[in-house]
Structure formats: structure tokens, C-alpha cells
């Protein structure tokens, strides 16, 4: 086996994925070839980094953090659930308040314009008279012409 062939199998050699005869061939080559052996050691060392990383453990308070975030989320959720309820309660309240203020305003309006209204009825009455007069006249003349 030449150096190129050995190099292209180093990772599978390290991972123990080679057939026994191929494994022996590479082992023998590495014992006699310094260049390939250096590369073998480099790659092997590099892969041990993964094992080091796997030993790192998460913070023991991670679950507390998660629980905290979940209760925050639930609070937000319950607030947003409450909001439509607020509207449901507020709607009739505002409606009746509007209605009430409408009534009060109406009474106030009625009181302050009572005098004016009386005057207006007099004016109206004269107008009506006048109109009636005119209409009567018109009918009369109409009747007259028919005759």
C-alpha cells in the first residue's frame, strides 16, 4: 500500500471500520512511514476533540430557567385570554353608559329648549294657517274652474 492509499483510509482506520487485512497493511505502513504516521496522529488527536466536547455537561439549573420561561409564557397567554373577556364585559358597560349619558343629555336639551319650542309652535301654527288658506283657495278655484 502506498502513502496515498494509506492517507485516504486513515479516518476509517481510526474509526475501526476496515477489514482486518487492510487494517494490518496500514498498521505496518504507519510503523515504517513517518510522514503518514504524523498525519495519522494529527487526525486521531483532532477526533479526540469530539470526545472532549461530549464530556461537557449542561448547567444544572437549566430546568429552572426553562420553567421560569414557561411560566412567563403562560402569564402572557392568560393575559391575552383575558383581553377578549375584558372587551366582552366592557362592551355592555360602555353601551349602557352611552345610553345613560344620551338620556341625561336629552333631558337637559328638552329643558333648555322648552321655551323656544313653545314659540316655535306659534310660528308653526301661523304658517299652517297661511298654508291652509292658500290651499283652500287653490281647491276653491279648482272647483270653480271645473264648474
Amino acid at each position: 500500500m502506498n502513502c496515498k492509499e494509506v492517507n485516504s483510509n486513515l479516518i476509517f482506520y481510526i474509526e475501526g471500520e476496515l477489514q482486518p487485512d487492510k487494517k494490518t497493511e496500514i498498521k505496518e505502513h504507519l510503523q515504517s512511514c513517518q510522514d503518514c504516521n504524523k498525519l495519522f496522529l494529527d487526525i486521531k488527536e483532532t477526533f479526540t476533540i469530539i470526545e472532549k466536547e461530549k464530556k461537557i455537561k449542561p448547567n444544572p439549573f437549566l430546568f429552572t430557567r426553562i420553567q421560569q420561561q414557561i411560566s412567563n409564557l403562560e402569564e402572557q397567554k392568560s393575559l391575552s385570554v383575558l383581553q377578549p373577556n375584558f372587551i366582552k364585559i366592557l362592551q355592555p358597560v360602555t353601551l349602557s353608559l352611552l345610553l345613560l349619558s344620551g338620556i341625561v343629555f336629552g333631558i337637559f336639551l328638552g329643558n333648555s329648549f322648552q321655551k323656544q319650542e313653545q314659540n316655535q309652535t306659534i310660528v308653526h301654527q301661523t304658517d299652517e294657517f297661511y298654508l291652509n288658506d292658500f290651499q283652500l283657495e287653490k281647491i276653491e278655484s279648482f272647483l270653480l274652474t271645473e264648474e
Partner: protein
Amino acid sequence: MSDSELTDRIRNRDQQAFKMVFDKYQIKVFNTCMGFLHNKNDAEDITQEVFIEIYKSINKFRKDSKLSTWIYRIAVNKSLNFIRDNKKSNWFKSVETLFPGAKNPEITIKDNINNDPGKTIENKERAVILHKAIGSLPKNQKIAFTMNKYEDLSYKQIAEVMELSLSSVESLIHRAKINLQKKLLNYYKIN
């Protein structure tokens, strides 16, 4: 308690069941995140996000797949999204996690006065080159390789998570190793 019972309980907002799922899967999720992010703080943040998602989306989990498969899928997606959104600083962070104080050379030397400072610097370099090499793999090769190496998942489990055939996963991991070997050889032949 079975995963099926646990998910039913979580659906009803049972905190105890949620804690049980957390205890059962936190290391698996954390290791998966570490495999992609190579930084303890980031991996913890994403692990937290994964469990919040589990809690929030438990109704979306269909029982025809395994709970573990579903959880791994969330962990992979969240990790990849994190990488996508934080591309720049990841390499530096990974060095910090493995070698605290590496950012500050003085501390590193002090810390390793009784050890071998040369070796730490060497390992720091190796970590950078490894993470760069894994990070530059095509997406599916990266996912399959990372789940296999960092989480020790079987090819069958990876096939379920990735929704691929067993032979596709075998081929992805094989190609990932060839690519990594090529990248590492290129680096170590000059250095």
C-alpha cells in the same frame, strides 16, 4: 412511564411529566446542540428553546413517530437556524468553550503552568480546524455525521430523524468522513 403517557400528560400541562421528559432527553438534546454549536452557553440556550418548543407544540406531535425522533428533529433545526443567524462569531466561541481563557493568553499560560502550554495551544488549533471542517460539510452530511459522532445515534435512528433511507444515511456519513479527512489532511500536510 412510557413516552406516549408522558406526552398525554404534557398535553394537559402536567409539570411533573414535563420534568420527566426533560430529565430523559436533556443530555441528548444538549449533546446534539453541542455537536452543531461547539459552545456550552449557546448549546444551553438552544436546549432551553428546544424544551420550550416541546412544551408549546406538544399538540403538533403525532404519535405515529417516536418522541425521541421528534425531539431530535427540533434540536437539529433549532441548532441549524442558530448557526444561520450567528455565522460570524461561532469559531471563536467554540475555542472558548473547550479552552476557557484561551482568549486571554496570560490566563492560559498561568493555568497550564504545571501542564504543557504547548499542548493546549495545539488542541486549540485542532478544535478550530475540526469545527471548521465539520461546519463546511454539505448540510445533510453535517447533520448525519454530527448525530452519529456527538450523539452516538445509530444509522437507523438518524434515518428516522432525517426521514431518509438507511442506505442514504450510510452514504452521507461515509462521504462526510472522506470530506473531513481531505480537509484535515490538507491542513496537516502543510502545518
